[in-house]
């Protein structure tokens, strides 16, 4: 058994819709896309999961002629991924597959009276399974296109998968027709998506417009996990949604676990899937993995855990205390508990406190594949210099550079993140191809290299830049007063006051007055969409370990204001955009690195972002929790975890012996305090009336 907690109820468990880490923590153990990440190898490497091998990539020109795999991307009109899955994989037991003796579906069609008294999936006692086929993968891709399923990747996939958008329209019309005829389920098998086809029982192909090399990473995400049509039809029956029996609540997959209990207001329980096709612990890893004993389980069948129980803990204090009592096997570290758990050494390294060490608790740290940045709205005339006037553009750039120097992210990380972060030298976090470390990765606009480390340029240099920008001493020549800039944020309330004041103080170093415009998240989003914000903070968490997934955040055609894309700074730079279009189709290698270097240089020079920092994740686990290697890309890692139940039971007993004497003492004290009262009462009872 594995015990852990979650703090927020997952909203969506439907693989077409789910896109949050807290949801994927569950469904990634249930659903199996064709590919997965190798658990131990770094840099992250994709390997087959249900696929028999890595997908075959075929390139075609405009005439439909096959092209060699190293063809010039401009010649590629279509690319096709052919995925062959392993035969013999079976779904978890599920009522949607259950059949009667005469081979009819037991739970389809169900009348309203047959649903009487059924409130959860457990109320359908008959269960069965069937073999996974290529049709199920194709069915799921079709589900992504159905507008009613609200898949967050529908827009993106519509740009790449041939026939995706047309299929969405067709499915919508079909659904409307079905609904008007009282049919709640539209059989997507009957509708064709031109870009997706089943080649045989175990092989399917996905045809993309042009080239999209990053598509392979999507094949390792739950969006591309298989969906049996029987399940969708089962849940779509009238009366099911009213009883909260939906696909969004009860996933059905082929993975090592199945969701045995889903009560996200209390707990969620994953139990071993008896039909799991089997997988073994990887035998390849780094030298560090071998030294850490990670390869001790090599070749052992997965999963190791029979059941995983996740309890809802909304508050950090009880969650932390229960971890210390040994009732949870792992834990993050909240700010309140940081000093109790971690002590920072003389050279800045994080170590566990003696109390944690005594309990045998282990610490894992990893720089996340995320970036937190402060952005300038490049459409703003003051900070963006959006005009044809070269002098204005130059002034704005120097202003941005000066601010980039002045904002001390090292201090920010130390004060507000307990040191859990790494100042960013560019948009690419460590672990992502294109990130350079050391002097080669230095942002020369903000830092200089001294004594083997990056040292932030002085505030004097920033002031000099500010003067060159036309704001000597931070004074706006038009008003004769301090230059006023506006920081838009959704942060408000006493909890954020110190953070916002810190930002104000950073700008004050340059003589600039920063006005914080706090608003609610809705208004903030609106400002970002309309491009009326001036400065803002934002973050991005990688979908996949490719530089494209970060560099697209500054690609002109992705601008938030004009195209509602993810380029929140509305940065448009023709050279950068040209390089991006080239880079995105290149394989990792020196040539791609060179292009990325040029792009990052442009970003440093133009400074549309203050690169901020890459958050560092700290997590703790007990000695009985094995194979706790953090993996920032994979979510299906529960199958690799091992628990030493005996060690845990012993520790729980030792650490949690009831202490009764204070209660006995309290009882005695109460008793003693009552004696004078009883004496007083008796005296009053015996006294004469006055």
């Amino acid at each position: 058994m594995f015990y852990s907690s979650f703090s927020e109820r997952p909203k969506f468990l439907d693989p077409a819709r789910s896109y949050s880490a807290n949801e994927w923590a569950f469904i990634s153990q249930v659903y199996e896309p064709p590919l997965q990440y190798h658990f131990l190898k770094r840099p992250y490497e994709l390997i087959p999961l249900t696929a028999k091998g890595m997908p075959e990539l075929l390139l075609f020109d405009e005439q439909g002629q096959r092209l060699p795999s190293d063809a010039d991307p401009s010649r590629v009109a279509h690319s096709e991924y052919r995925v062959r899955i392993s035969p013999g994989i079976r779904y978890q037991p599920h009522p949607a597959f259950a059949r009667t003796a005469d081979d009819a579906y037991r739970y389809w069609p169900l009348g309203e009276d047959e649903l009487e008294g059924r409130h959860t999936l457990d109320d359908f006692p008959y269960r069965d399974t069937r073999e996974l086929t290529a049709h199920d993968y194709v069915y799921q891709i079709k589900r992504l296109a159905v507008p009613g399923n609200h898949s967050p990747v529908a827009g993106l996939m519509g740009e790449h998968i041939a026939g995706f958008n047309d299929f969405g329209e067709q499915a919508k019309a079909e659904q409307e027709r079905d609904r008007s005829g009282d049919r709640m389920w539209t059989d997507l098998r009957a509708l064709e998506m031109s870009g997706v086809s089943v080649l045989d029982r175990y092989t399917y192909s996905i045809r993309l417009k042009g080239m999209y090399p990053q598509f392979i990473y999507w094949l390792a995400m739950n969006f591309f996990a298989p969906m049996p049509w029987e399940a969708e039809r089962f849940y779509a029956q009238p009366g099911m949604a009213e009883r909260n029996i939906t696909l969004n609540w009860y996933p059905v997959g082929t993975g090592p676990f199945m969701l045995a209990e889903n009560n996200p207001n209390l707990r969620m329980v994953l139990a071993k899937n008896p039909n799991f096709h089997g997988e073994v612990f990887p035998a390849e890893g780094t030298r560090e993995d071998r030294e850490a004993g990670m390869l001790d389980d090599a070749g052992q069948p997965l999963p190791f855990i029979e059941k995983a129980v996740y309890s809802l803990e909304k508050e950090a204090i009880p969650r932390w205390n229960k971890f210390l009592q040994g009732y949870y096997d792992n834990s993050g570290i909240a700010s309140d508990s940081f000093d109790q758990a971690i002590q920072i050494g003389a050279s800045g390294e994080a170590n566990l406190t003696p109390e944690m060490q005594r309990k045998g608790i282990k610490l894992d740290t990893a720089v996340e594949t995320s970036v937190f940045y402060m952005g300038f709205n490049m459409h703003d005339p003051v900070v963006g210099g959006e005009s044809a006037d070269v002098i204005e553009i130059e002034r704005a750039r120097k202003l941005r550079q000066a601010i980039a120097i002045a904002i001390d992210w090292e201090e920010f990380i130390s004060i507000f993140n307990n040191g859990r972060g790494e100042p960013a030298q560019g948009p690419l976090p460590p672990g992502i191809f294109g990130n350079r470390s050391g002097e080669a990765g230095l942002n020369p606009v903000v830092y200089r290299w001294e004594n083997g480390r990056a040292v932030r340029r002085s505030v004097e240099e920033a002031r000099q830049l500010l003067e060159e920008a036309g704001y000597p001493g931070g004074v706006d020549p038009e008003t004769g007063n301090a230059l006023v800039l506006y920081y838009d944020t959704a942060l408000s309330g006493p909890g954020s006051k110190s953070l916002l004041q810190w930002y104000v103080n950073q700008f004050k170093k340059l003589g600039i007055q920063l006005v914080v415009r706090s608003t609610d998240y809705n208004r903030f989003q609106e400002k970002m969409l309309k491009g009326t914000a001036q400065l803002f903070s934002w973050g991005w968490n990688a979908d996949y370990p490719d530089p494209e997934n970060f560099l697209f955040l500054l690609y002109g055609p992705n601008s938030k204001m004009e195209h509602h894309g993810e380029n929140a700074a509305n940065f448009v730079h023709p050279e950068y955009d040209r390089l991006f279009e080239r880079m995105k189709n290149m394989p990792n290698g020196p040539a791609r690195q060179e292009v990325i270097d040029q792009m990052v240089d442009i970003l440093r020079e133009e400074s549309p972002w203050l690169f901020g920092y890459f958050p560092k994740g700290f997590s703790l686990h007990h000695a009985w929790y094995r194979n706790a290697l953090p993996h920032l890309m994979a979510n299906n890692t529960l199958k690799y975890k091992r628990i030493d139940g005996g060690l845990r039971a012993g520790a729980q007993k030792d650490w949690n012996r009831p202490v009764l004497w204070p209660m006995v003492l309290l009882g005695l004290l109460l008793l003693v305090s009552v004696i004078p009262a009883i004496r007083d009462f008796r005296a009053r009872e015996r006294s004469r009336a006055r």
Partner: protein
Amino acid sequence: MMAYIVRRTLYAIPILIGVNLLTFLLFFVVNSPDDMARMHLGAKRVTDQAIEQWKVERGYDKPLVFNLEAEGLGQVTDTIFFDKSLRLFAFDFGQSDSGRNIGHDIGQRMWPSLAIAIPIMLVGLLVNITFSLLLAFFRGTYLDFWGVVLCVAMMSISGLFYIIGGQVLLGKLLNLFPISGYDIGAHAWKFLVLPVIIGVVSSIGSGSRWYRTLFLEEINKDFVRSARAKGLSEQRVLIGHVLRNALIPILTGVVVVLPTLFMGSLLLESFFGVPGLGSYTIDAINRQDFAIVRAMVFLGAVLYILGLLLTDISYTIADPRVRLE
């Protein structure tokens, strides 16, 4: 009395319409249907088409309260307000914006709330009445003085302190109870003891002081003096006469909260991981789930009105002189 109940029930209708309208206006002043769609669809890669589709599916593409494009009655009925609010009066809460059946969720979550709220209320009532009777009994002595001081001190401490302090002291340091959690069946009691103790202890200060005041007011009345003159013991005077006559204000406080007990306690449930209704509304506000917000506010209003009605009825039971007309 029947006529009185019917009249009060009819009074409730305009109140509930007003509550509904106010909730609706307040909610949509802060959140537009676009904001709600964005919140539900997530922050990443949301397209304008997806937002439109979400609104159409849930009926949030209509005008808020007045439809200029419609004709006749449709100007009022073809609106978000009418669509979402009318069926509440039939206690049909419909589905949440995330697709869950609200009535089913309320039915499921009210029991854990009640499992904590009822013991807290009953034990709390017993403890507070006993303690305040003792204070009244020992009035004017050092026990009364220090008892009142203790009550004032306990009133002054935040509820959050009791929760965290109780969890750390009784759960973590003394290991007497689980720090948090919830279960159903035979093991449920061990998870309930600590929140109930904390709920009761945190209410002692204010409850006992209030009841002590009520008892002291009664204790100086003529009928108490007569009871004493009859030679009744002080215990019998207190329990048989003082307590009985102080019941009306106590009932006012207790009965009015009876129906709302199942709405749960936000703090207790959050800290103890109890899957009750306490955080249902707050979570819905944070998720901008208007369907749940309106349902819970409506239900809260209904229960409050019901509580007041029950209070009035309880007066007739506690004091036969009271007549409802």
